[in-house]
Structures are given as C-alpha cells and as structure tokens.
C-alpha cells in the first residue's frame, strides 16, 4: 500500500469521522496532556530520585508509581493514534513528528536498557542509597528524552506540511 492510499484509508475510518466532530479533538488533546502529566509525574519523579533528589525515599517503594505512568502512556498512544488517523498527512510529512518519534524510540531503548541491566541493582536502593552511576545516567537521559518528546509534540503545528525537510516526502 502506498502512503497516499494508506492516508485515504485512515481518513475513511469511523475514528477519523469521530475525531472531526466538534468536541472530540480538544477532548483528546486534554487527555493527551493529562497523560503527559501522569507519565512525567511518575516516571519523571522516579528519574529525579535515580539522579539523586529525595534520596531518603527507597527506590523500590517509589517504583510502585510507575504503573500509573504506563497508564498515562497508554492514554497518549490511544489519543495519539486518534490524531494520526484523522489527519495522517499532518504527521507523516511533519519533521517535528519525526523528531518526536525519534525521541520516543530513544526513551524506549533507555527503558529496555534500564530494566535489563539496572532494575535489580536499583531494587536494593533503600533510604539514603545513591543509585549506581549507569542508572543515574539513564534517569537523566529519560528526562531529556521525554522533554524531547514533549517539545516535538508542541512544535507539530509550526511545521505543518508541505515542507521540504521531510525524508518521507521524497518517496511519495
């Protein structure tokens, strides 16, 4: 399927129709921003503790907040897919969206790295314990990547296609 056919198909779905009703888009935006707050309030707070803020809080105890961050992330994937489905060309050919996806990929790789290499060690970080250096770096990287995701998202409307600096457009 070529990109244009894919876009046309997305735009013909019931979800695209729903998103074009008066309240759907702003409501989904509101949910998207609340999901962002949930993610940054749990994962971001955990990252800050990894880096060294509020060191008296035992890290495993704070990790219990993470499921709510995952919940926020799921809200944002669902609302994000809804935006994309309604206006695919506004995202597919938007360099700001590509940047946002790049930062999300980096954040994802960072999460995988953290849980495969550092999670067990961090489970032993009780009150006053500093997290190991690689974990501290991953915490800082996580904050940087998520701020990158937010920035890419906020810049979407300022890079509305058509725009030339878009690698996808060369193939379509």
């Amino acid at each position, binding site marked *: 399927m070529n990109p244009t056919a894919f876009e046309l198909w997305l735009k013909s779905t019931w979800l695209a129709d729903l998103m074009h009703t008066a309240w759907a888009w702003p409501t989904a935006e509101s949910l998207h921003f609340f999901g962002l707050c949930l993610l940054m309030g*749990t994962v971001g707070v955990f990252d800050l503790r990894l880096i060294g803020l509020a060191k008296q809080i035992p890290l495993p105890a704070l990790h219990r907040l993470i499921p709510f961050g995952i919940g926020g992330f799921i809200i944002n994937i669902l609302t994000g897919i809804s935006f994309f489905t309604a206006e695919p060309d506004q995202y597919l050919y938007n360099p700001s969206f590509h940047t946002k996806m790049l930062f999300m990929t980096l954040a994802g790789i960072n999460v995988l790295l953290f849980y495969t290499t550092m999670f067990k060690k961090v489970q032993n970080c009780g009150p006053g314990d500093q997290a190991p250096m690689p974990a501290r770096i991953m915490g800082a990287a996580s904050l940087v990547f998520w701020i990158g995701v937010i920035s890419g998202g906020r810049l979407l409307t300022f890079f509305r296609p058509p725009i030339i600096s878009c690698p996808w457009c060369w193939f379509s």
Partner: protein
Amino acid sequence: MDWYSFFSWIENSALGVWMRESPSLWAFPFILILHTIGMAFLVGPNIAIDLRILGVAPRVPASLMERFFVVMKLGFVINVVSGLMLLVAYPTKALTNPLFYIKLLLIAIALTQTMWIRKNVLSADSFPFKGKVVAAASLVIWAAAVGAGRFLAYTYKYLLAGELL
C-alpha cells in the same frame, strides 16, 4: 481606557510583537514548549503526591515527598513567566474567553489544595479521610485545569483587538 485600547496596547508592545511575529522558533514556539514542560513538572509530582495519599506506593514516606516541591515550584515559576508571555502575545484571545478565567480559578483552587496537603498531610505524615478527599479532588481539579488550558485553543472568540471594533 476601553478594552480595545488596552488589548491593542499590550499587543503592540515590543514583547507582544516579538512573540507573535518573530519567525524564530525561540519566540512563540519555545515559550509554548516551556509552558508544557512547566506544567509537566508542576502537575506531574502533584499527581504523584495525590496518588501516594490515596494509597499507591504506601512505602514511600509521605513527609519525604516534600522534596519534590522544589521541582513543582520551578514548574510553577516557569509557567507564570511563560504564561504571561503567551498572554502578552494574544491578550484579546485569552481575556475575552470566559474559559481563561475558569482555568485561572481552577489553578488557584488546585494550588490551595496542594498547600493544604503539604501542611496537613505530608508534614504530619498522617492520612486522615479528609486528606484523601482533598487528594482525590486535587487530581480532578488539575485534570480540569489542564483540559481548560487545552480548550482555550478551540474556544476563543476574538484573536486580536482589531476584531473588537
């Protein structure tokens, strides 16, 4: 001075013109990004504190969550400054929309609740039923404040002062 003169005076200030008309990403787009990051650091840890009071992550000593107020204060300061800059760029758009005042009211209520929680729940490290009610309300009010902010982009009636004439 009538509203038109007041709004157009702000719109035509050096800051207002720069925010609105500069093609630089460091003008309006960057300030908008800051406003969102500030929100994340103000509302985010607030949600974490509310969740803790409601019983999530019970092994986190509540009194230690006060340490996150540094981050929340930073987020608040970023948002007052960036918010004022966005307001100077489009005073008519914001100030002629009733939802803008509702947003400010919601933020005032949410911040009052947060300070109450800090004093009566976190510092005391005790979780009275009243504290849980305020924490639950805090989640709702913050969500409403964030939603109100988002709806501002879709509900304004006049963008610039000239439309009032």
